[in-house]
C-alpha cells in the first residue's frame, strides 16, 4: 500500500473514529460533576476499615489488589521479555570506555545519588499515608542508581546493580505479592484478603497487607527499572 493510499484511508477511518469519540465524550458527566458512588464510599470508609490515609494506595493494594497482581505480572513479563530479546542478541565483545569529562556534571550527579535514592525510599515507605507508594517510589529509587551511570562511569553503575541481585529482587518482588495472597488462602480467607493486624492510623506500618504489598511493589519496580536501564545500557556499551 502506498503512502498516499494509507493517508486517504486514515482520513476516512480517522474521521469516523473522531465522530464516535466525540459522541462518546458527550455522554460523560460534566467536568467536575462526577457522582460515582464507589469512589465516594471508599473515600468515606477507608480510614476506618483499613487504617490508611492514602485512599489510592488502599484501592491499588487492597480493594482492587487482584488487579494490581495482574499489573505486577505485566511488568514482570515485559521486563523479562526485554531481557530475553536483548541478552539473546548480544555478544561478549570489548566494551567501550565512557568517561564523563565535566567535573561539574560529575560532582552534582554523584552528590545527588544519595538524596534521590533516599527520596525514593521515603516515597515507598510513606505510600500508605501520603501520595506515593511502591510504584512511584520504585522509579525514583531506581533513577538514583541510574544517576551513577549518568554522572560517573558505567562500571560504577554495573557494580551498584549486579545482575544476579537485580534478577533476584525482581522475582522476589513479584513472588512476594502472590505469596501474600496465598497466605490469606492458608488462613482460610479469600485470596489477597487483608489478614494482618491493621496497626495504628498515621504510622508507616498501618494498613496490614497494604503496607506489605506496597513494599513488595516497591522492590519489584526498583528492580524492574534498574534491569531495564541495565539492559539498554549494555546494548549501548557493547
Amino acid at each position, binding site marked *: 500500500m502506498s503512502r498516499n493510499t494509507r493517508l486517504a484511508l486514515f482520513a476516512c477511518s480517522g474521521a469516523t473514529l473522531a465522530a464516535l469519540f466525540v459522541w462518546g465524550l458527550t455522554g460523560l458527566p460534566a*467536568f467536575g460533576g*462526577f457522582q460515582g458512588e464507589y469512589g465516594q464510599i471508599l473515600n468515606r470508609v477507608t480510614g476506618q476499615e483499613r487504617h490508611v490515609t492514602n485512599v489510592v494506595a488502599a484501592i491499588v493494594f487492597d480493594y482492587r489488589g487482584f488487579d494490581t497482581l495482574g499489573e505486577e505480572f505485566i511488568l514482570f513479563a515485559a521486563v523479562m521479555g526485554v531481557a530475553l530479546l536483548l541478552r539473546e542478541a548480544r555478544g561478549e565483545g570489548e566494551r567501550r570506555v565512557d568517561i564523563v569529562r565535566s567535573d561539574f556534571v560529575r560532582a552534582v550527579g554523584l552528590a545527588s545519588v544519595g538524596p534521590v535514592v533516599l527520596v525514593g525510599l521515603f516515597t515507598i515507605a510513606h505510600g500508605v499515608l501520603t501520595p506515593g507508594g511502591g510504584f512511584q517510589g520504585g522509579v525514583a529509587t531506581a533513577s538514583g542508581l541510574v544517576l551513577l551511570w549518568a554522572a560517573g562511569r558505567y562500571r560504577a553503575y554495573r557494580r551498584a546493580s549486579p545482575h544476579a541481585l537485580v534478577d533476584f529482587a525482581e522475582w522476589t518482588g513479584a513472588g512476594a505479592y502472590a505469596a501474600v495472597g496465598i497466605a490469606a488462602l492458608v488462613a482460610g480467607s479469600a485470596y489477597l484478603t487483608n489478614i494482618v493486624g491493621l496497626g495504628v492510623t498515621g504510622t508507616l506500618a498501618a494498613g496490614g497487607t497494604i503496607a506489605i504489598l506496597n513494599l513488595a511493589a516497591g522492590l519489584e519496580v526498583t528492580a524492574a527499572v534498574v534491569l531495564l536501564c541495565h539492559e539498554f545500557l549494555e546494548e549501548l556499551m557493547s
Partner: protein
Amino acid sequence: MSFLPYALAAWLFFVGLYGVVTSRHLVHLVVCLGVMQSSTYVLLLAIGYRTGKKAPIFLGVSPKVGAVDPVVQALTLTDVVVSVTTASLILALVIDIWKRSGTLDPDELRKEET
C-alpha cells in the same frame, strides 16, 4: 470551558494516532504511542474530578470533606505502569529490528519483506 479537559484528551489521542499512521521511524512511532496513551490519563483524571475537592489523602483531614474520585486515580497509576513497560518492550523489539535489517523506516522494512 468545562469541556476543555475532554477536548485535550481527544486532541492528544488523535494527534498521537496521526503520528503513528504517518511515522517514518519506529522510535518516533513509540513516542507517538506514548502521546496517545497520555490522552487516557487526562481522560480518566478529568472524569473523576469533582469541583472544589482535593486529593483523596486524609492525613489530618476528616473523610467527611470528601475528595475527587480515587478509583480513576488508581486506574491511571496502572495505566502509567503498563504504558512504560510496553514502551520498553517495543523499544527492545526496535533494537532487534535495527540489528537484523539496518533500517527503522516502516516503508523500507515492508519493501525488504517483499
